[in-house]
Each structure stands twice: as structure tokens, then as C-alpha cells.
């Protein structure tokens, strides 16, 4: 005598449906990926540079002194093979370009296809040798004098930032206009970030200084180049006003002190609470009912 399989209908529903979904997703995903690649071949190296590189290295490849190395006039960038390697694999650690030391992180741009990287490398070597096919913006210098800091002109007219609004955007109490998550989802900065949470991304206290002040931070935020931030902000970048507000807020962060919560204190409180819970449960379980038949077998009930 065998029982019928339990929930036969649900079983079919729970296996076949997801399989069908996966199959359809795979088919259409492949189709759309192909069409994307086909389109990408039409995009020129300068457009790809503008979309992927100009955020940090600036439209004309002039970089930001001390933070993002310049490409224009950079002898290393004249070699398209080297550029392609750096773009596809990323680069980090101390380097020296045109006599200025840099120590940053460039993430690998693994989402770019080989053709796209080759196009970018061609464009960059053009910038480095001053023979870029596209005309660089007028404001960009074609060569940088050794060791002399350049005054970089922001790519767009500056927008006045407000630190309070920036804080609201950072903690997420005001949502970013185009729907990207608030910074505090991953980061802490200044006095924002209690209980040591949000350790997913790096602590942004002092990022203003690290990324080259207002210009560097603005450039970074306009096109975040890190591996984790890029996909988050690629389709829904922040507005200029939001960037300016956040920069104003982040510039202020080193001046504020985060209230400290000792992890030890938390641990001790948690353990104490757990102990009390266990003691309470042990007390409650002493009074747990026994099955009635067991009570009858051991003690005769007294008449009411």
C-alpha cells in the first residue's frame, strides 16, 4: 500500500516552470547580447573613452594630478598593447607618471569586449602621442610640463553643493533622483554609520582628500569607475546637483567624529541577552505539560 506522491501538482509546477523560465531567459539573453555586440562595433574609440575613461582621466586625457594619472603626453600610454592590458585587467599600486607619484586603484573593465578595448587603446595612444583622431576639447592641454601641477578646468560649469542635502542623499533619507541606492547602503562616512555597519564598501571619511578634492571627487562620482559601483550607477547616474551636494558633504566629513560603539560591548550585551533567554526558556520548560495519558499512568487525578 503506497501513498500517492504528495503534492504532485506543486512538484510539476515548482520544477517545470523555473526550467522554462531559464530556457527562455537564456535564449533571449543570448539574442540581445549579440545585438549589443553588433551595435558596439559601431561605437568609436572616442565615444567609448568618453563613456568609460573620461570620468577619471578627463575628456582630454589630462587626468587629475596626484589622483588620476594623465594619459595625454604619458609615454606608457602610447603603447596600445599596454593600454589594452591595463583596461582589461585593471591596475593598482604605486606608479610615477611625468614625475608625479600616484597610488590608486583602477578596476578591470571586464564588461568591455576585445574590440571595444582595442578601440579605446587606439584612442588613448592617440591622446598620449598627441595624434588623437578626434579633436580633444579646446581646454585640454596637449602636453603637461614635468612636475608642474596643472589647473584643470571642470568639464561642466560648477554647481553649488549643499552639505545638508548631501547628507540626506548619503544616508538615503532623500532618494537619488534616478533611482540608484543611497551611499549608506554600502558606505560609512564621518559621523554617519552607527554600530559599525555598512562595511560593504570603504569608509568614505577623507575620500575628498584621497580622490583629489572637489574636481577629482566630482569626476569620480559622475562616472564611478570601481568594479562594484560601476554597474550600480551605469544606467542611473547621479545628477550634477546631487554630485555637488555629496561632494560638499564628503568634504566636510573629516571634521565630524563618529560616535564609537565598541564591538566588545555589543558582544557582551548579546551574550548576556542570550543567556537570559536560555535561562527563561529553561524555567518555562520545566513547567511544560506532559501528555495527559502519561500523567494518568503516573498519578491518579484527584476528584474536583
Amino acid at each position, binding site marked *: *500500500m*503506497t501513498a500517492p506522491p*504528495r503534492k504532485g501538482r506543486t512538484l510539476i509546477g515548482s520544477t517545470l516552470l523555473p526550467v522554462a523560465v531559464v530556457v527562455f531567459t537564456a535564449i533571449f539573453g543570448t539574442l540581445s547580447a549579440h545585438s549589443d555586440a553588433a551595435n558596439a562595433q559601431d561605437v568609436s574609440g572616442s565615444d567609448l573613452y568618453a563613456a568609460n575613461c573620461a570620468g577619471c582621466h578627463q575628456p582630454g586625457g589630462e587626468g587629475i594630478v596626484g589622483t588620476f594619472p594623465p594619459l595625454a603626453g604619458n609615454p606608457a600610454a602610447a603603447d596600445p598593447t599596454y593600454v589594452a592590458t591595463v583596461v582589461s585587467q585593471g591596475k593598482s599600486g604605486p606608479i610615477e607618471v611625468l614625475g608625479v607619484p600616484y597610488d590608486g586603484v583602477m578596476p578591470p573593465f571586464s564588461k568591455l569586449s576585445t574590440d571595444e578595448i582595442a578601440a579605446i587603446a587606439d584612442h588613448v595612444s592617440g591622446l598620449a602621442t598627441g595624434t588623437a583622431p578626434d579633436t580633444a576639447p579646446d581646454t585640454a592641454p596637449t602636453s603637461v610640463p614635468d612636475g608642474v601641477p596643472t589647473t584643470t578646468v571642470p568639464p561642466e560649469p560648477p554647481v553649488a553643493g549643499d552639505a545638508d542635502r548631501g547628507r540626506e542623499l548619503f544616508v538615503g533619507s532623500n532618494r537619488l533622483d534616478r533611482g540608484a541606492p543611497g551611499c549608506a547602503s554600502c558606505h560609512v562616512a564621518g559621523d554617519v554609520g552607527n554600530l559599525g555597519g555598512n562595511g560593504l564598501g570603504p569608509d568614505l571619511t577623507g575620500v575628498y582628500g584621497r580622490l583629489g578634492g572637489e574636481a577629482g571627487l566630482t569626476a569620480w562620482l559622475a562616472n564611478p569607475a570601481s568594479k562594484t559601483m560601476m554597474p550600480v550607477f551605469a544606467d542611473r547616474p547621479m545628477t550634477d546637483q546631487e554630485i555637488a551636494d555629496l561632494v560638499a558633504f564628503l568634504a566636510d566629513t573629516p571634521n565630524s567624529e563618529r560616535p564609537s560603539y565598541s564591538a566588545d560591548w555589543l558582544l557582551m550585551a548579546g551574550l548576556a541577552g542570550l543567556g537570559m533567554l536560555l535561562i527563561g526558556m529553561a524555567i518555562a520548560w520545566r513547567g511544560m*505539560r506532559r*501528555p*495527559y*495519558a*502519561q*500523567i*494518568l*499512568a503516573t498519578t*491518579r*487525578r484527584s*476528584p*474536583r
Partner: protein
Amino acid sequence: MKVRAQMSMLFHLDKCIGCHTCSVACKNLWTDRDGAEYMWWNNVETRPGTGYPTGWEDQDHYRGGWHRDAKGRLKLVLHSRGGGIAKAFYNPALPELEDYYDPFTFQYGNLFGAPAGQQQPTAIPISKITGRPVEISTGPNWDDDLGGSDIYAANDPSMDGVDDAVRAQMEEIERVVFNYLPRICNHCLNPACVAACPSGAIYKRSEDGVVLVNEDKCRGWRMCVSGCPYKKVYYNWDTGKSEKCILCFPRLETGQAPACAHSCVGRIRYMGVLLYDADRIASSASEPDDRVLDAQLDMILDPFDPKVITAAKLEGIDDGWLDAARRSPIYRFVKDWGMAFPLHPEYRTEAMMFYVPPLSPIMSTIEDSLVKLDLPEERRDFELLDELDKARLPLEYLANLFTVGDTEPIRVALRKMLAVRTYKRRQSVDGTIDATTIEMLAEAGLTEATAEAIYRMTTTPTMDDRFVLPPYHREMSIEAINDPLSAKGEAGFGYRREPKRGA
């Protein structure tokens, strides 16, 4: 006066043979499902005993039903309103699976599929839940036919108040006695399960008083399980919802008696309509213990009274129902003849299933290896009437079950039954009715016509006599909104919609 109709069942315990056909019919029809293995919406208990779930009448343990507080107000035994919230996530009065039983079956496949061996293959008991071998240690009606068992019978809460000497006698092997008590949901007028439900999922149907759990609204708090003093709401661990006897309302609506009643071998069950005054539910349920039974029976209205008929029609009870109420066998047993009582009226839920208490043989003694009755030989029939106190089932015991400890109504009912027996025996054996017999009938409060009517309703009722089902006209109300042809061919077993956990 707010007249409402109630479908009631009556159990003639004098006729019950304890065959459990009712339980099996109900099990096959309603609870042969995952999560419902342990449920017996209909069960038959051997009494004296502790029943199913074990000791359900011990409300100190299970905290079911209502009690009347010092100010005469009606309160749930389970908890107060605030206490209910405090204990929402930990209901301490729930029966456990061990209180019901671990449902088991036998490994029949082994009888055919066992590998060749030295011994005959056996079908070992396995749990219906886990499929693993189990040692069966309890079951529904575990103390089946174990009259006077020293665990179950000795601990029957309804034996409280029975004289110690009588109890000691009952435990002697020659005097062992038991009877059967079939139980379904009592479809109470003042249901404690409805009052205890935090989700408002349980309701009493207005047209026939059937108490139902709305499986869509049920959130599985299980307060109904502990709130019901009869332990007749069950928790289905597979769907996460509570379930209970539905009085086979789909059968009632199509003019059939409930499966348990229909299949009853001893024909002990009767079905019929009772009219009652809904305005008096609260007041009668909060009467003190000695008046609570009378107050409940007083609530049942006379369907022949023109005032009642007018008021009933105002409430939308149609002529078909009123006619059924006038022909109701329940009304005759309960109100006309005063022979039937609800189970444990002291729980104050106003149970609407009624029981005719059982007769039991007179105590006998064994002298010189011969069984002798404790009665003089002459005029034995008449002596029996006056010697009800010597019945093997103590009147106090029956009174604890049905009449809040008051033996007088039980005595009256049993005297009537005995009088009818004697009268019919005179008639069929002697062929004549003598004056003493007529006098005996009168003493029991019966006329010859009434005795004849009781005899007919007890011994030779037809199906139509036993089950007087009112016309529900459900087909008319269904056709008003649905096209019956569109649903044709879709009838069958299973859920129309799968009950979702927590949905």
C-alpha cells in the same frame, strides 16, 4: 424574540453498539488527508473512560469552554482578552499529538513484497506521519471496551461525585460496566471556539447553525483548539489551518443526512430542525449551574406556537423549514418527551447535539456460581422502575455527563424508557395491558399514546422518520449566480482551492 433554526442531531445511547461505523464513514469522507490523519471529527468513546483526546473533559488541564465569574458574567476559561494577547504565541492549553495519538497504519506491502525468509512476513505498525515503525501506545478509544480499566475508567472526570463505595464496586470484575458515547462537534449556540478565535475565522451559519472554520481567514493561532471544551476543533499540520466537523453540510444541502448518521448501523442517530430564541443565548448561558440546563432547553421554541411561527417568518425562515421543525424527532425527544440532554451543559456553550441516556442492567450478585439479580423475583419489571439506583451505570455518572450532576432529569428519562419497555412487553407477550401497567405509565408521566409514539420512534423509525431534513433550496441560490452547466463534470474530491499556509 429572534427565532433561528438549528440542525441538531440526537444520539440514542440505549441503541449504540459501539461499532465505529460512523467514525469510519466520517474518516473516509473528510479526514483521509495529509495533516488530518489523527483527526476524528466523529469518534466513539467507551465510557467510563477518558475519551479522545485523552481526558478532554478535564478542563483544569485543557481549559475549554466558559465559566461564570463571581459577578455572574460569562468568561472564557482559556484566557481573558488581555491574557489572550499575551499568550498569542504560546498557548499553554493545547492538546499535544500524544494526547490524541500518533496516527498509525500497517506495512501491508511487506506481506507481499518481503524477501524470502524463515518466518512469515508480518505487517508491522508504522507511523502515518513519518512512515517509520512505531510502538502503538495509544489511539482514539484506546480503552475500547475496557470497562473499569484502572487508568482510563478510573480517571474519568465524570465519575467525580459518584460514591466511593459505588466506584469500588464498579471496579469489581463482575460489575464492570461500560457504554458508548459517540461524539461530533456540538455546533453550539454559544461556541467557545468562535469566541476564542483571534482571526474571526470561525462562524455559525445563520440558516442552520452549522459552526464552520473559514480556511481562508484561519491563521492557525489554534485558540479554538484549546477553547473548545469538547476538543472538536483540530489543527491540520499540513495546511496550517484548523478544521472541524462540518455536520456534512454539503450532504444536508442536498437532502442527505450526515455521513455518520446515514451509515449508523444501530440507527441511533436522528436529525432534525430546532427553533431557538437567539436573544436568550447570553442570559441562559450565564445562568448558575443548577439552572443552566433548564435555561438552555427553555430557549428551544415550540414550532407549533403561532407567535413563534410569525416571528420565525419575520426572520426569513420559510414554511419548508417550519414544517421540518414541527416534524423534528429531536424536538419530540428533547421537548415533548424530555428524554434527551446535551452533553456537559455546564460548559455553557449550549451544545445542540442531544443524547438519550442509556439504560443499564440492574446490579447482580453471584451466589453459588449463579448470577442473581438484586431484586425480588415477583413483579420484577415494576421493581426495576423504583430500583434505578441499582443500575450498573450510576445515575450520578450519567448526571455528570448530561445534567450538571442533577440525577432527577436522568431518572425521569430512564423511567420513561423502562415504562415503555414494560408496556410493550405486556402488550406483545401477555397480549393485554393490566391496570398496574397503566398506572406505571402514568407514574412515569406517559399516556398509552405517548408510550406508543416513543416506542415507534425508538425501535422502528424509517429513514424519513429519523432524518427530517428541511429543504435548503441551495440549488436555487446557486443557480441565481452560477450557471450549473459550467461546473458540470468538475465535482470530485480534494480542495477547490488549496488552503495556503498563512494566506
